[in-house]
């Protein structure tokens, strides 16, 4: 036990980790810069989406008369209008609204866990971390359903010029519009989903550490703060994906 105590003792020397640039601890500062670089990646994805969308023909007809075609970029409300258990009903953006709410809620429970960590309240940290894991996992489940629906397609599919019909989407064929639309859907929401998955794994790790009292004995819950920064970033990215992919 004495060895672990010396290992965790803070280093005070200027060149020994005692100096904190920008008055943020080493771990938090590095998390900020990692998130900045990650934001560039997501930014690149969304920029490509904007560019591809503007180099395709927009749909100019009446929204009511909209049909799927590879000729023009689809209206998101007409693509994402399904809800689990309500087959065949037109519920534009309802499911993605639910997913957004779940993710915002998970961000709140995360910040409550961080707040409990500041007060060294182990029970509260455990409680809020569990809620965050639950919401995160629920979001992943929703996304799995969203993907399954997008891949298998609607009942009508898309009528091609030769009279055949295409159902669903993959990387080369897409019933909803130009193939690039499906590719960008898979890459953008897939990359975001991978981040949510990593976040849930990190949350489970810090939950186990919290239960074992690792942070309590260390004297601070900074690890919860760092994972919290990552988790809020995932929520932040979803806010942008939601706007640029589903709303606009």
């Amino acid at each position, binding site marked *: *036990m*004495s060895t672990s*105590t010396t290992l965790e003792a803070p280093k005070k020397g200027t060149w020994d980790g005692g100096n904190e640039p*920008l*008055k*943020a601890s080493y771990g938090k*500062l590095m998390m*900020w*810069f990692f998130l*900045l670089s990650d*934001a*560039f990646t997501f*930014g690149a994805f*969304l*920029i490509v989406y*904007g*560019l*591809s*969308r*503007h*180099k*395709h*023909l927009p749909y100019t007809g009446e*929204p009511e008369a909209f049909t799927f075609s590879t000729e023009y970029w689809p*209206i998101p*409300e007409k693509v994402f209008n399904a809800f689990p258990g309500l087959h065949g009903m037109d519920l*534009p*953006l309802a499911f993605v*609204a639910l997913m*957004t*709410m779940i993710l*915002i*809620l998970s*961000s*709140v429970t*995360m*910040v*409550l866990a961080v*707040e*409990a960590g500041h*007060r*060294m*309240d182990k029970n*509260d940290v455990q409680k809020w971390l569990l809620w965050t894991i639950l919401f995160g996992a629920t979001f992943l489940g929703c996304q799995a359903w969203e993907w399954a629906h997008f891949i298998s397609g609607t009942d009508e599919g898309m009528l091609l010029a030769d009279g055949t019909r295409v159902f669903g989407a993959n990387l080369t064929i897409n019933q909803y519009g130009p193939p690039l639309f499906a590719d960008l859907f898979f890459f953008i929401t897939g990359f975001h989903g991978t981040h949510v998955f990593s976040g849930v794994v990190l949350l489970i790790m810090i939950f186990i550490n919290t239960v074992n*009292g690792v942070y*309590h*004995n260390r*004297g601070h819950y900074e690890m919860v703060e760092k994972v*919290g*920064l990552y988790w*809020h*970033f995932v*929520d*932040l990215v979803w*806010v*942008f994906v*939601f*706007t640029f992919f589903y*709303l*606009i």
Partner: protein
Amino acid sequence: MATHHDHDLPVGEIPKPQTKAIWKTFIILVVVTAIEFAFAFAMDAGTARNAIFIILTIVKAFYIVAEFMHLKHETKALIWCIILPMALVAWLMVALISEGSYYFESITNYFN
């Protein structure tokens, strides 16, 4: 772990939670999202609606980064370290979207 108990805080000294600001931020985020949905259904698609969506998104991003990620309470230098590179990304987005429009114009108007 028993050797560590002298470092522990005495039981009963855990302060009360201060969660008012957190729930306030949560309500702001939910309300802004609800407003976005209202615009999605009440207003026809167009540049004006897109501008409203982008402004509301930036409002949400501000509350998440400033309050939840606590950036508002960090040093000025750190705040600028994060905001300046992202401003450049936003600029790149504007530039490449207009590039996409130009590309579309070219292939529809000049090659038909």
